[in-house]
């Protein structure tokens, strides 16, 4: 109960912030919340379960495109579209996970990289269904129970998505399942000897985190009221990986720290170096791996220890 109160309190505070911000900063805030959400689920896959995949934004895209296509091209009501979209993500994730999680180490990364690129090709060539390279635009979120969700009120939806994702992952993490994931990451052979079904654990972790990315994608579809291919490409998949590594892979706090840091960095840097902030991301990525593998959160731990 105490945990539930803490989650609710956090949701309340994060939602309240939305009503204090101007429309521009509300938009920035929404994107930040979405990046944190994605970083949390990606961290569970990469940092906790040790699987390196570049398909997280693919599932984000499948969720976003699915909900838009189902509502505005097939005319389904919103709740049905959400259920069908989530089911689609989980199904595609399972179909991808069952064969590909057998791949060791970076080979999973390359297979999912191919999947991600294939998805972009399909989006670009999808004709009127996907809107081709221009994507889909000019649609609006239907009223939910006669209630129009726009402006800061839609930001509350994103806060709920973030809190829901975080709570779900935290529960999984502090259970036998989270430990099994970490065991698979640290030493698969020993994990199997302890009774962990390595293949099943990997598939579940992949499918759950991918479905969470899909859910986030459905929410994203109504943030800009447009979906187009470049958002879901390799660039953002790399950035997500960088966020988790720079923040500190394997820890929720690390994922949050990395997402906030790399998301806000360009705002600070753009007066200095224009749009070349990606170069800084690359340097930070290399520096984190070589100099500080525990990431920002490791630096924070160290500082706290020194002060104490």
């Amino acid at each position, binding site marked *: 109960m105490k945990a539930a109160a803490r989650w609710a309190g956090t949701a309340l505070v994060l939602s309240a912030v939305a009503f204090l911000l101007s429309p521009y900063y509300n938009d920035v805030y929404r994107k930040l919340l979405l990046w944190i959400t994605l970083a949390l689920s990606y961290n569970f896959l990469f940092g906790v379960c040790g699987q*390196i995949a570049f398909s997280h934004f693919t599932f984000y895209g499948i969720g976003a495109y699915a909900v838009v296509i189902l509502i505005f091209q097939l005319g389904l009501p919103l709740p049905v579209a959400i259920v069908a979209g989530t089911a689609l993500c989980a199904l595609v994730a399972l179909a991808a996970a069952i*064969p*590909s999680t*057998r*791949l060791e*180490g*970076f*080979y999973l990364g*390359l*297979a999912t*990289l*191919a*999947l991600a*690129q*294939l998805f972009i*090709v*399909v989006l*670009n*060539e999808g004709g009127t269904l996907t809107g081709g390279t221009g994507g889909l635009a000019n649609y609006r979120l239907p009223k939910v129970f006669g209630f129009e969700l726009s402006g800061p009120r839609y930001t509350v939806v994103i806060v709920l998505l973030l809190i829901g994702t975080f709570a779900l992952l935290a529960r999984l993490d502090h259970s036998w399942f989270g430990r099994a994931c970490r065991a698979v990451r640290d030493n698969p052979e020993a994990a199997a000897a302890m009774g962990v079904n390595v293949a099943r654990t990997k598939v579940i972790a992949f499918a759950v985190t991918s479905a969470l990315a899909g859910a986030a994608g459905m929410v994203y579809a109504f943030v800009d009221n447009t979906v187009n291919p470049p958002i879901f490409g*390799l660039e953002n998949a*790399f950035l997500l*990986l*960088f966020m988790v*590594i720079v923040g500190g892979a394997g820890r929720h706090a690390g994922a949050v720290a990395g997402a906030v840091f790399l998301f806000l960095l360009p705002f600070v840097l753009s007066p200095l170096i224009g749009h*070349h902030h*990606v*170069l800084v*991301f*690359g*340097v*930070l*990525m*290399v520096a984190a*791996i*070589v100099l500080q*593998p525990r990431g920002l959160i490791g630096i924070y731990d160290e500082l706290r220890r020194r002060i104490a």
Partner: protein
Amino acid sequence: MRDFLELAVSAAASGCVYGLVALAYLLIMRPTGIVNFAVGEWAMLGAFGAYVASSVVQLPYAAGVAAVLLAMVAAGWLTERIAVRPLVERGAPVLAPILALLGMLVVFRESISLMFSPDPYPVPYAFGFGRLELGPLAGSYQSFFIIAVSLVVFAATWLFFERTLAGKCFEAVALNRRAAALMGINLARVTTLSFAAGAAVAGLAGVVAGANISAHYLMGVPLAIQGFTALVVGGVGRVEGALLGGLLLAFAEQLTIRYAPIPAGYAQGVPFLLLMLFLLLRPTGLLSARERSG
């Protein structure tokens, strides 16, 4: 038929480029186990190097290529020093340098985008622009040049591994790092050399391919994917597999564009589809690593 033979020459040239990139991966993977996804950026650096050598410094072609290859050796050495050596010395898992190299990929690409505008830059042809007919085969000078250069590189690499002591050292490291270290092979030196050689080969791929596709700061990742696909199709263990895989991939791409009744855009998906299928169904590739006795 004439149409097909024309297509065959250009496909073979693209295949050789993919093969060179695959070889760059292979040179590093064999002794170290590291998948270096930044090879595509090395090719990009090679292409920009060729542009600078010809258009800015105005060196003759051969001197320009030699200068670029020297610079690439330095780039490979530097990459290894920054993103690999500290991790290997610390005993970090093999995934750590792979991820650090992804960071280097972005560093290379963004450095170039900082120095050059996002326009394509011309890379010189070896023998100018012209058409050569060899019996029934016809193609551009550059296509034949690419094929010839690649064959020389592959033959030299093959001879290096099969016929020289240094090559055997690489082999020994590929088979068993600990045993090789006990035999007195300097692992750090082999790693450095493999990165230098990989960078030179990838840079060469960029130099020769750049003439057709121009130097562009975003050219690296597609080449990296095509090269890795070639490697996986041909078989990760063998030099000749890299060439075979590159040729097969290029022919699959070009035949799809030319003859398959699907929108041309879908042809871009061919390497991705091949990569996925081979990784999932036949991860050892067409030519599996040779069985070696004890």
